[in-house]
């Protein structure tokens, strides 16, 4: 490979170098305990998806260019250049990874493969091999932020339509979807789809919350793409909006990575302390139910209900109990999946993989563990607070004929609320 590109690619590692990365590079014993932790390796048996192998590709470059032993005796470590062969395998194993960090959970040294792959993504982008679809989605989101005026009318009119639907559900002609409300306590940053706004609006309004809706979506394809600057700009859109409106708290929707990005990543990207409290919508709903601010009736949801912990919300976000408490508040017929919480199997739909057609086969094959879990639970209703998980599980549901109803948790809550209006039929 030519020396300019080599300098560029090793320069990426140099720029991204930190103590954790260095230790992960230095200490992995290649014991392969991570093998059975990974849903993609288990689902496909394909060696390139073995977590330690994904990391090993970066290690091979690291050994050659960042260690003396690897420089002098590269054969000892199979150290090599980031050539086309390496980059091609790296592309597959990196963009396929859902970032669930189940391998880290089981690793005796807690090696964070996803963190190593964040460097891999930066290398791929520098080599002009970043995933095109994720890049486009990120750019579109940044474009919306830079040209907010252009989309203002469309957005406002969309919110007005949703407001009508909310009023039909609550039966209250005064229910609102407040837009650009200065002095609101909460800025709710939803997803682009109406489905993530409608039930949340019903709940906020019924709880008497002082809230306003964001003009932007919480999803962050810059994060999945692996470009820190793009990711920062996408999140910055609603951080700036929250500052402008003077809210106290930012609430993110039923989405896994949106919470992790806001709570754990944005401070590092922006190099400034997060000026707002970040909450997941289910934390708020759990509080509303426990404080009696909204009422839910048990018995309105039929069938045995189970719950899937999205990796970014559970293992990586720490929200294990709030969603369960909500589900248990709307039904007495709850059963947990096995394993669950920190040991929950990734459904296979995270990391932006649902948007990348080229990974469809591995994605569906990797869902086999989730399918087994769902079958074993005997549940007919699945509550799942992550859009990517739901897209994946709905597809698995169809292919494997599980006969499951897959619900957002807030949809379950609205279905269980005694409201004067007409309940929406579950999509």
């Amino acid at each position: 490979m030519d020396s300019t590109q080599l300098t560029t690619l090793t320069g990426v590692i140099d720029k991204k170098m930190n103590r954790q990365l260095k230790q992960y590079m230095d200490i992995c014993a290649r014991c392969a305990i991570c093998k059975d932790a990974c849903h993609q390796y288990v689902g496909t048996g394909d060696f390139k998806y073995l977590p330690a192998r994904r990391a090993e590709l970066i290690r091979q470059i690291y050994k050659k260019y960042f260690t003396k032993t690897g420089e002098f005796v590269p054969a000892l470590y199979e150290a090599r250049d980031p050539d086309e062969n390496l980059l091609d395998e790296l592309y597959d194993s990196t963009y396929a990874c859902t970032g669930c960090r189940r391998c880290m959970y089981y690793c005796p040294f807690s090696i964070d493969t996803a963190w190593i792959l964040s460097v891999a993504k930066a290398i791929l982008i520098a080599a002009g091999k970043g995933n095109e679809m994720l890049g486009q989605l990120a750019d579109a989101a940044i474009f919306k932020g830079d040209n907010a005026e252009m989309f203002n009318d469309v957005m406002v009119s969309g919110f007005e339509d949703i407001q009508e639907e909310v009023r039909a559900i609550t039966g209250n002609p005064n229910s609102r979807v407040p837009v650009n409300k200065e002095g609101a306590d909460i800025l709710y940053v939803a997803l682009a789809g109406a489905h993530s706004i409608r039930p949340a609006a019903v709940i906020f309004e019924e709880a008497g919350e002082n809230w306003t809706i964001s003009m932007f979506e919480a999803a962050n394809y810059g994060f999945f793409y692996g470009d820190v600057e793009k990711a920062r700009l996408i999140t910055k859109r609603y951080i700036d909006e929250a500052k402008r409106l003077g809210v106290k708290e930012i609430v993110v929707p039923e989405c896994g990575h949106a919470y992790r990005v806001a709570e754990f990543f944005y401070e590092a990207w922006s190099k400034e302390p997060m000026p707002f409290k970040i909450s997941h919508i289910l934390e708020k709903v759990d509080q509303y139910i426990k404080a009696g601010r909204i009422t839910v009736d048990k018995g309105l949801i039929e069938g045995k209900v189970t719950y899937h912990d999205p990796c970014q919300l559970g293992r990586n976000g720490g929200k294990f109990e709030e969603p369960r408490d909500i589900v248990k508040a709307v039904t007495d017929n709850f059963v947990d999946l096995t394993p669950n919480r920190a040991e929950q199997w990734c459904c296979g739909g995270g990391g932006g993989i649902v948007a990348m057609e080229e990974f469809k086969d591995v994605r569906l094959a990797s869902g086999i563990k989730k399918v087994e879990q769902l079958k074993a639970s005997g549940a007919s209703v699945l509550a799942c607070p992550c859009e990517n998980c739901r897209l994946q599980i709905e597809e698995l549901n169809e292919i494997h004929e599980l006969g499951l109803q897959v619900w957002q948790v807030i949809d379950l809550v609205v279905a269980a609320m005694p409201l004067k209006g007409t309940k929406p039929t579950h999509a």
Partner: protein
Amino acid sequence: MSDETKIDLELDLKGLLCPLPMVKVSQNIGNVPVGGVIRAVATDPGAMADIPAWAKSTGNEVLQAAKEGSEFVFLVKRVK
């Protein structure tokens, strides 16, 4: 306008939640020739911002983004 435009590909994106309508348009833009037009029908209102934003940032052109009843109809022209 839509009456005069020759449609090269029809996409039914009804029921898809954002950003999937944008993803589908992006995945299919390569299936029409340069200058060709995709007609896409979505039901998620988020597409009204997503698809034009995608077109602008990728250098393609949205000839029409209109609400027709409960549906959103887009005409997207492949520019390059």
